[in-house]
């Protein structure tokens, strides 16, 4: 039976108003926004959606959700289980904290190895917190697998995966033999929305918790200790522009004034 592993990540809600975004520069951490809960990374959720679509197409498959994060990150796993995945694994250990993409990939790859046999690993194209997009490629390197990035459509047939990729100026179709790592872009389309019954059912699906020791790794290989990039500063960039609001008796008048101003500035 086809076994697909979907990596998901819990992130601060990227839809939260930018004006509320704050960082603690001394701690080099983003401050949680009161009243705004973290969410499952929208790209990774589309990875789960991709796996579900493949299961529907082939008839039978097992889908495992994998996340790395603190206790609260279990919500991201639960969401994916409510969408229809079968079981979850959460890597949670103090030692995993503050890792860069390489340290995180090492932990995830070790967990994926432990979940063998598998055919496909899905990740989001980049998590909307650090916006990096490195982890999936490094997982592929660590597992010795091909990695197809930024997919908007995936199909499996006879052990071959056909992927449509999003490029800057169009699309590319790529074929690759399984197993493979695939990253999913938003162009895949809207993920399904779990119904109440499925949310209830998800509560009963198993979620294992694995530590560094469970993965057979040394704490020095993961988290901040295992990172090659050091974060030296985190800050909110200053926006210096002052907006001049153009008004008028009517909106037509405002529109004319705007055109005149732009003409004056030689912009049109």
């Amino acid at each position: 039976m086809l076994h697909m592993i979907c990596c998901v990540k819990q992130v601060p809600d990227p839809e939260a108003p930018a004006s509320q975004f704050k960082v603690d520069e001394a701690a080099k951490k983003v401050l949680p926004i009161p009243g705004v809960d973290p969410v499952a990374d929208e790209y990774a959720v589309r990875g789960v959606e991709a796996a579900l679509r493949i299961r529907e197409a082939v008839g039978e498959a097992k889908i495992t959700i994998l996340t790395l994060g603190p206790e609260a990150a279990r919500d991201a796993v639960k969401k994916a289980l409510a969408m229809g995945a079968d079981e979850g694994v959460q890597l949670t250990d103090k030692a995993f904290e503050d890792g860069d993409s390489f340290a995180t990939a090492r932990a995830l790859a070790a967990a994926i190895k432990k979940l063998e046999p598998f055919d496909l690993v899905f990740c989001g194209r980049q998590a909307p917190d650090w916006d990096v997009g490195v982890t999936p490629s490094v997982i592929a390197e660590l597992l010795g697998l091909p990695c197809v990035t930024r997919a908007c459509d995936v199909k499996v047939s006879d052990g071959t995966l056909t992927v449509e990729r999003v490029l800057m100026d169009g699309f590319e179709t790529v074929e690759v033999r399984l197993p493979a790592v695939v990253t999913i872009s938003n162009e895949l389309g809207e993920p399904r929305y779990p119904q109440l019954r499925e949310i209830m059912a998800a509560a009963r699906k198993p979620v294992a918790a694995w530590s560094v020791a469970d993965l057979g790794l040394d704490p020095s290989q993961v988290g901040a200790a295992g990172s090659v990039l050091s974060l030296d500063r985190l800050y909110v960039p200053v926006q210096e522009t002052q907006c001049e609001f153009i008004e008028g008796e009517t909106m037509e008048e405002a529109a004319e004034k705007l055109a005149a101003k732009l003409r004056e500035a030689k912009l049109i």
Partner: protein
Amino acid sequence: MANESGVLVVAETADGAVAGITLEILGAARRLADKLGQPVQAALLGQGVEPLAQGLIAAGADKVYVVDQPILAEYQTDAFLPAVEKVCREANPSIVLLGQTDVGRDLGPRLAFRLGTGVAMDCLDLAIGDGRLVMTRACYGGNANAQHTCKSMPQMATVRVKSQEPLAPDSSRQGQVNKVAVDIDASAVRTKITGRRKEEGEGIRLEDAEVIVGVGRGVGSAEGFQTLTELAGLMKGAVGSTRAACDAGICSVATQIGLTGKVVSPALYIAVGISGASQHMAGLSGAKNIVAINKDPEANVFRYCRYGIVSDWKAVIPTFLNKVRQLKAG
């Protein structure tokens, strides 16, 4: 390896010429290398690309490593990766730079892994501090900036399009061209490209446009998109869009501006029905003047604007379009 020296640029080509992003990175590489007292190296990969080596030298490179083989005719990770890896081992640079492009996004992380180092993606600024490469990049959808250094060698970064100034090309610059033979096993290329389709808007390329009309989800329909396309045409500009507008099916993915789309640098950007999510604004870091029309006076987009009108776009754009037409005619 030790004694690393040099700033190596992984060059890209587009339509038989050196890509603009490569010229920009060579400019940055030159500035960093001069500060370090090290040479600028370039890796040029492809089929029939050798004649472009002189162009890289004119743009700032001291030494160009050329891998010219049929298997490199189009970008595939498994073919390009061993070739770039071999060039890096031969050149032994202290810094490796790639573009934040289709190729760089894909190749950067895997090359870093092979070289036993890390990579900072989508950097906006590169500087030297205490002899190390200080890499500044946007994160949290552009809400924050992070500054990184790399604990291992070589120090690697991908560079955002239009964030760096190219040098004025100087065809009298002298440099060295080294051909490198790499044994790339065709059977080791695990992916097979079976199709490609371009999706480009008509008229002026978004990246080259001096005026861009930006379409947001607030525009609401393909019909609204038509009106704004007309406005863009009138100003000899192009139409851009947000990820939300693309996901809503209002515009094509090739028009997307932002972290997951293109980076543009028009003299004038007119944002219509765009709230100004940081992920979109990240693609406008090079825009010189931003104007927005949005119903919500608190919309984030106004923080970036020179002029703004608080209104439903439908009440403003038709008059604006007519006025522009008049001005153009007069």
